[in-house]
């Protein structure tokens, strides 16, 4: 199950959707809005997606994980829009006959989602600054590119 939504993520429903008599293990991962990153205080986050490609890309991740790992069911939901501290931006549920594969697949899915799925996070800091997050581009670079 793949979902891209502007509503709060119902991780309970997501988890229920992967439960299965064939599975002895379920893992759920939640990404939540953290208040402090390297000592800098965040007020809220904004996530933007390229919706069509994000959905296609998440569906590819699901298919690829089913090839790489022994999993029973997978469900992925990513939220976009503004999120307050503590809110859930992403949820990934995996069921598997055995726990090793449920953990490995869950870990691989969130790692690979963060590398591939076209979604971007903008930090709104407590000091009023706002900044798109772009892995591999240092905050230094981000700041000097102020015309952006």
């Amino acid at each position, binding site marked *: 199950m793949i979902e891209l939504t502007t509503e709060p993520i119902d991780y309970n429903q997501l988890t229920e959707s992967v439960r299965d008599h064939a599975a002895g293990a379920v893992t759920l991962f939640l990404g939540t809005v953290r208040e402090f990153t390297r000592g800098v205080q965040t007020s809220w986050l904004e996530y933007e997606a*390229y919706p069509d490609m994000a959905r296609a890309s998440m569906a590819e991740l699901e298919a690829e994980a089913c090839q790489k790992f022994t999993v029973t069911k997978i469900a992925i939901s*990513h939220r976009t829009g503004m999120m307050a501290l503590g809110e859930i931006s992403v949820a990934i549920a995996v069921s598997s006959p055995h726990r090793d594969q449920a953990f490995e697949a869950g870990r691989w899915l969130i790692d690979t989602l*963060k590398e591939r799925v076209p979604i971007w996070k903008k930090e709104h800091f407590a000091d009023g600054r706002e900044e798109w997050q772009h892995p591999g581009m240092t905050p230094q670079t981000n700041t000097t590119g102020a015309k*952006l």
Partner: protein
Amino acid sequence: MNLNVLFFAAARDAVGADAVTVDVPEGSSIGELQQLMIQRTPQLERWSQALLWAVNNRYAGCDQVLHASDVIACFPPVSGG
């Protein structure tokens, strides 16, 4: 041929539009389109090493040849999750 290019996140902010239409010669590649876009929008220069391109919802390399019907998108490194 006319191509419609979508922009996201900081790349959209740089271009100042969600999408632009550009006229490129038949058989142009992503690399050539990127050069053209940077000429038109020098603020994109800063992203030249990092800009990502997608064609029809899949990542595309510099030498992918474009067609008029392609859905093309341009964006900075992703940071979802």
